[in-house]
């Protein structure tokens, strides 16, 4: 393995890992803020108990999301310095703005939320969690704008004198048409994940004998989680469909690879299952639904969808002429077909299963029913796992499907890697981070399991700072590390 392979593996491993925690953070922060607001407005104890219970799980999750996020920002410079030089003028800005607008907001107001129960008036305390959530949305917006630019570069010009891509329209980058469909898709998937987390955990607790006294509480959480997951899931499907059409337009090769569509078709059929030849130029066996791909890709039942072999010729003609003009090496422009093909299907499949799981839990617990079957608890816990893996498959698909490009049409991944980094350094990095992340996963899951099993604590009226006197300053803190 050379530095390029190692750097790619590292990017894949740590980014997919990081993004296990991100959608839970985005989705759960909104749900918790909603629960706390419901408590402030209605005074119903169950809402505060749920706020605190899911709040604790949220913090266990958030901590890993934050610390693994630091690596994300540093690794562009560490492993991808030529990429950073080439695109820094455009790509750096959203990262910097993300830090200034999102990270400060999230970290500061989460600190206030964690420690502020006895210091902030109730409404303001609930507001801090809303601000954390807004911070996560800002964060998603800017990092997705950066990623969308890699999928579909806009608002720039290539400067032959400096050999760099240079920003000339910031708003074009912010309002990139890929961004406008990617942001809702990713954020809705995060809401679905947050909902799946709540419904899965609550359903598991719902059927546990030791928590039988809290069945009403858990049924409440099941309903909240399931509704969020199902509504958001519908949105994920709609935005995903819109994304497919934009993708066909700006990255036709990715769509063709997603379908393992070797030859152009009109109308094109959707493949349920395709096996290609080892050299990746034709299909050997396939099961297909007629016309469906045409609809997914173009919005009409008989639209033309270009195949891999035609696109390969087009790309070679377009990009293979003058490799000196920009940062790429002429070569094969076809991504890894099995990876793109299967991750695309898994993404859609587990997304549908997540929604189905949430609906099934809702159905099985309707009108106070309590499922007695032993598999119910396991099925419930698999719902958030499915939701999270949907995000992982989605990202692996969209990033692998862009290959060999780092920035579509401008720079190949191979040309972005750091020239000054040695194989030893890169290997050390990927091994250290992978082992560390593995250990942290075990610790995190252990803590999650422990605090899920505990269930919600009994209701305790939090001290209201509006009616506290100065003599209370010697009371123990309501929360301490």
């Amino acid at each position: 393995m050379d530095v390029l392979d190692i750097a790619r593996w590292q990017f894949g491993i740590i980014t997919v890992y990081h993004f296990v925690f991100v959608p839970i953070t985005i989705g759960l922060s909104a749900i918790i803020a909603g629960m706390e607001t419901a408590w402030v407005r209605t005074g119903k104890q169950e809402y505060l108990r749920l706020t605190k219970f899911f709040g604790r799980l949220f913090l266990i999750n958030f901590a890993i999301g934050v610390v693994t996020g630091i690596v994300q920002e540093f690794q562009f410079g560490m492993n991808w310095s030529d990429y950073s030089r080439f695109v820094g003028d455009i790509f750096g800005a959203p990262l910097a703005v993300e830090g200034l607008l999102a990270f400060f907001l999230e970290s500061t107001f989460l600190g206030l939320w964690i420690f502020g129960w006895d210091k902030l008036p109730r409404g303001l305390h609930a507001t801090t969690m809303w601000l954390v959530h807004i911070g996560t949305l800002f964060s998603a917006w800017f990092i997705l704008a950066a990623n969308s630019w890699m999928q579909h570069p806009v608002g720039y010009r290539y400067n032959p004198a400096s050999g760099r891509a240079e920003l000339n329209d910031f708003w074009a980058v912010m309002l990139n048409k890929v961004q406008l469909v990617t942001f809702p898709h990713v954020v809705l998937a995060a809401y679905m994940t947050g909902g799946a987390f709540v419904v899965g955990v609550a359903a598991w607790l719902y059927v546990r004998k030791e928590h039988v006294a809290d069945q009403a509480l858990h049924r409440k959480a099941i309903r909240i989680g399931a509704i969020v997951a199902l509504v958001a899931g519908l949105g994920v499907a709609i935005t995903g469909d819109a994304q497919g059409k934009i993708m066909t337009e700006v990255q036709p090769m990715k769509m063709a690879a997603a379908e393992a569509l070797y030859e152009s078709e009109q109308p094109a059929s959707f493949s349920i299952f395709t096996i290609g030849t080892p050299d990746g130029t034709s299909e050997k066996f396939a099961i297909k639904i007629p016309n469906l791909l045409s609809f997914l890709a173009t919005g009409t039942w008989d639209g033309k969808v270009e195949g891999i072999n035609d696109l390969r010729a087009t790309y070679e003609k377009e990009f293979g002429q003058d490799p000196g003009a920009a940062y790429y090496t002429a070569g094969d422009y076809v991504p890894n077909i099995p990876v793109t093909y299967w991750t695309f299907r898994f993404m859609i499949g587990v997304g549908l299963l997540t929604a189905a799981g949430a609906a099934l839990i809702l159905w099985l617990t309707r009108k106070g029913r309590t499922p007695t079957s032993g598999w119910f608890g396991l099925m419930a816990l698999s719902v958030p796992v499915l939701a999270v893996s949907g995000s992982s498959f989605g990202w692996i698909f969209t990033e692998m499907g862009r290959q060999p490009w780092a920035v579509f049409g401008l720079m190949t991944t191979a040309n972005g890697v750091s020239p000054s980094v040695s194989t030893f350094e890169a290997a050390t990095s990927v091994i250290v981070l992978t082992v560390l992340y593995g250990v942290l996963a075990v610790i995190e899951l252990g803590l999650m399991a422990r605090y899920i099993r505990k269930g919600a604590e009994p209701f305790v009226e939090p001290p209201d700072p509006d009616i506290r006197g100065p003599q209370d300053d010697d009371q123990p803190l309501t929360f301490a590390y």
Partner: protein
Amino acid sequence: MELTTVWFILIAVLWIGYFTLEGFDFGVGMLLPVLARDDTERRVMINTIGPVWDGNEVWVLVAGGATFAAFPEWYATMFSGFYLPLLLILVALIVRGLAFEYRHKRDEAHWTARWDLALIVGSFVPAVLWGVAFANIVHGVPIDADKEFTGTLFTLLNPFGLLGGLVTLTLFLTHGAMFVALKTTGEIRLRARELSVRLGAVAAVVAVVFLVWAQIDTGSLGSAVLFVLAAVALVAGTYLAHLGREGWAFVGTFATIALAVAGLFVALFPDVMPTTLADGVSLTTTNASATAYTLKVMTWVAVIFTPIVLGYQSWTYWVFRRRIGTHHIPTAELAAR
């Protein structure tokens, strides 16, 4: 003023924000086994920074992101060149950040002890390595004509670099002790105050040697003034700690770090990363910068949002202004809530 100069100053400000704020976080973490006699006292120390450490750490993320945006070449050369030290810093920041959140999640002694170790080592490593990194940036490192760093890890471990690491280490220890003295009550406050005086004396000696060396190496009139002010602030802060004026003493170390970092950036200007190679290229505010358009967009964002961030971050410190003592640490039963 040129926008490249504006952004050089803004990046200096971001690093000053980072070192003055997370500097005391690192100090508190490293001093855990020194200042605290038992678990409750350790928790007192950890809770002085509990609500704010994460916000403090964001300064380095914004500094990194702003460098990427405003000086892509600087970001690319520095981050790919200082590869292994940065990897160590990342690992340290990861385990340290988790220690805050996970330490109290289980009661077993071995669990707490391991996270304490993560917190102590995770604070020590970046406290030293940031100093090593900055000393090397100011002095210069081998950068070739392609703007690539050509050295190794050992290139950075030169006497000047190591002394820089010792400076940040002793300064952050002092800063942390001052902070604990300012934010706690009871015995630990007295212990912290007493230790801060001794640490301040050590830091003053190390810092003066380093700053004189840096001034001779690459300094200008401006950096000389700032270095002298930094040294004065440190001596004054230490003396004020001795007098028991904890607030002003903390202001003293805060000013010391701010002035010293400012002085180093002034010494650096207009380079951002000078080369030590005869046929190499020094990265400067002009040849490493982004385009004027990007800098203009970024300037607008910074002008609008930095005051807002400073506002709410200051407000957090106001909300959590109260001193903490052992009697504030909730019992296990309370914590279960």
